[in-house]
């Protein structure tokens, strides 16, 4: 399949990418709208001799991930919002024990059972840590099926490199949409030694223990400081984002994943109306691209920001933090699984442009 473009569904591309990244463990549980990831793994993972288990619950699935990661293996799970909520305790343990793993959240509308249509309402849960304690997940938000492929492969390298959980945050649209994908002949897999893994001493002098508990407060605080240093390093080195026309934009849109695709068309339409609109699209939601947003806020040409999300407004807070009050930050969002139309967003742009801001 290398090199040529293949029309493929987002969810399946995620699974294919994981297999190409050398992931040989998948533990999951059925939930719309991500189940195709599991279907694909149920066949392909088994065919290549990897481990596939449909767990009894998402709680068990994330703990199987914890086990496989503790044994030093590349491992993935996928789910959707309610399932990811069930996995939060396990994710906090993975952070505490510093285990490499990849978790995919194909977000659906909430809260509660909510709906099965797309949403971005898990932003806070993903980026602020939905579990207990001070920890972070590296959160990546692809905006196309090609990015789902490339960034999932990248996710495994990042997980191993930083010994943490990397979350691919998609949504129902992205997971269910089909787009052509160009696969590479060879994947940029970075294999890393894992001397800390609990895989049997086999003659090793000391026994390895993978744990996240430190009864002694000084030890636990030292551990937390270590984690915070790691997160600081990641914030300085692993931010990914894309920028469009910020240099002469009057209004800068901030949007990620599916919303950013809609906004690209809005930018063209606004230009035809003589309104210069740019966009900053975070690709990593954590570490968040605060710097480029702040720099945009410092530009004279930039008069205001418009944050567009499929939620009641979550990333908008990070945008406001980054802008530090230099410019007004407006918000437009849809919920319940509805997507904003280009017209709705364009109307909002015109309002802001004409100073009739809501």
């Amino acid at each position, binding site marked *: 399949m290398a090199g040529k473009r293949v029309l493929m569904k987002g969810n399946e591309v995620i699974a294919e990418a994981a297999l190409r990244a050398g992931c*040989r463990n998948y533990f999951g549980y059925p939930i719309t709208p991500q189940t195709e990831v599991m279907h694909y793994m149920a066949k392909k993972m088994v065919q290549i001799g990897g481990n596939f288990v449909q767990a009894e619950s998402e709680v068990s699935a994330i703990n199987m991930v*914890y*086990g496989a*990661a503790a*044994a030093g293996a590349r491992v993935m799970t996928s789910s959707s919002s309610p399932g990811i909520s069930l996995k939060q305790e396990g994710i906090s343990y993975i952070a505490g024990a510093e285990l490499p793993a990849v978790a995919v959240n194909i977000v659906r509308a909430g809260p509660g059972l909510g709906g099965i249509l797309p949403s971005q309402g898990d932003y806070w849960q993903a980026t602020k840590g939905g579990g207990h304690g001070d920890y972070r997940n590296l959160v990546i938000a692809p905006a196309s099926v090609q990015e789902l492929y490339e960034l999932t492969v990248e996710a495994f390298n990042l997980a191993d490199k930083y010994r943490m959980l990397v979350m691919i945050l998609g949504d129902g649209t992205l997971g269910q949409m089909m787009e052509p994908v160009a696969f590479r002949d060879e994947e940029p897999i970075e294999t890393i030694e894992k001397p800390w893994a*609990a895989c*049997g001493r*086999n*003659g090793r002098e000391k026994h390895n*223990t993978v744990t996240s508990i430190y009864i002694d407060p000084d030890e636990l605080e030292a551990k937390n400081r270590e984690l915070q240093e790691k997160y600081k390093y990641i914030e300085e080195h692993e931010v990914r984002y894309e920028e469009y026309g910020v240099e002469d934009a009057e209004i800068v849109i901030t949007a990620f994943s599916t919303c950013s695709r809609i906004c690209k068309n809005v930018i063209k339409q606004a230009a035809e109306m003589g309104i210069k609109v740019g966009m900053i699209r975070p690709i990593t939601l954590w570490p968040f691209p605060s710097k480029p947003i702040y720099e945009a806020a410092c530009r004279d040409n930039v008069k205001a920001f418009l944050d567009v999300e499929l939620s009641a407004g979550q990333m908008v807070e990070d945008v406001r933090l980054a802008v530090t009050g230099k410019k007004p930050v407006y918000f437009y969002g849809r919920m319940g699984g509805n997507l904003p139309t280009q017209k709705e967003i364009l109307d909002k742009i015109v309002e802001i442009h004409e100073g009739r801001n809501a």
Partner: protein
Amino acid sequence: MAVVFEPTKGLTDKPFHYCPGCHHGIIHRIIAESMVEMGILEKTVAVASVGCTYNCYEYFSCDAVQAAHGRAPAVATGIKRNLKDNIVFTYQGDGDLASIGTAEIVHAAARGEKITAFFVNNAVYGMTSGQMAPTTLLGQVTTTSPFGRDASYQGYPINVSELISQLTGAAYVERVCLTDFKNIQNAKKAVQKAFKVQQAGLGFSMVEFLSTCPTNWGKEPVEAMEWLKEKMIPQYPLGCYKGQDIDFANLGKAEEKEG
């Protein structure tokens, strides 16, 4: 004179933090001795749960992983699926296995995961100071059944070995205790049989240890053993509930006979 009994290399030299007379220490030792005697310590991975033995990984000399409360069988599944030639066991209490972790233990057994669960039943939550557990006896006073467990609103004790032995994936299930020399030697045999079942890939294995909790039972260690014999054994009869007649010598032929 020759040494006929000495501390095992299967344990590290860190002293146990367990209360005086607690049977966890005995169970740790016979598991550790078995790993050494069977020559499997170097390829064993233990999975500690949450309870008094949350840090048993500091006591076992083998590699170990600490699991969230109730999730050890799932963690062990993830480990064993990747380390097929290793020995993987969980070490869990009754709150961990029979309460919050019921789904995990039942499904690990139902899937026939080739892991071993060492299940310590002391009828209370020890670490958190004596709450009622699923295995608390009717009438037994605990910090959350202060008037004695009353079935009318606190339901009935769960017989885990009987429950798990119903699952086809479970190849070997035995309940033992540690109240005297004979029972401890029998318990050690059960531990080694469980490891053999795992080595032979016959499926899931579990040993349930009835165990004292002197502190939370409010009894002297010796008196606690009497209570265990008098009260717990009638509710939780000792014995092998699955896999009594596994003939390791000729497993191949055994399958043909059954097949």
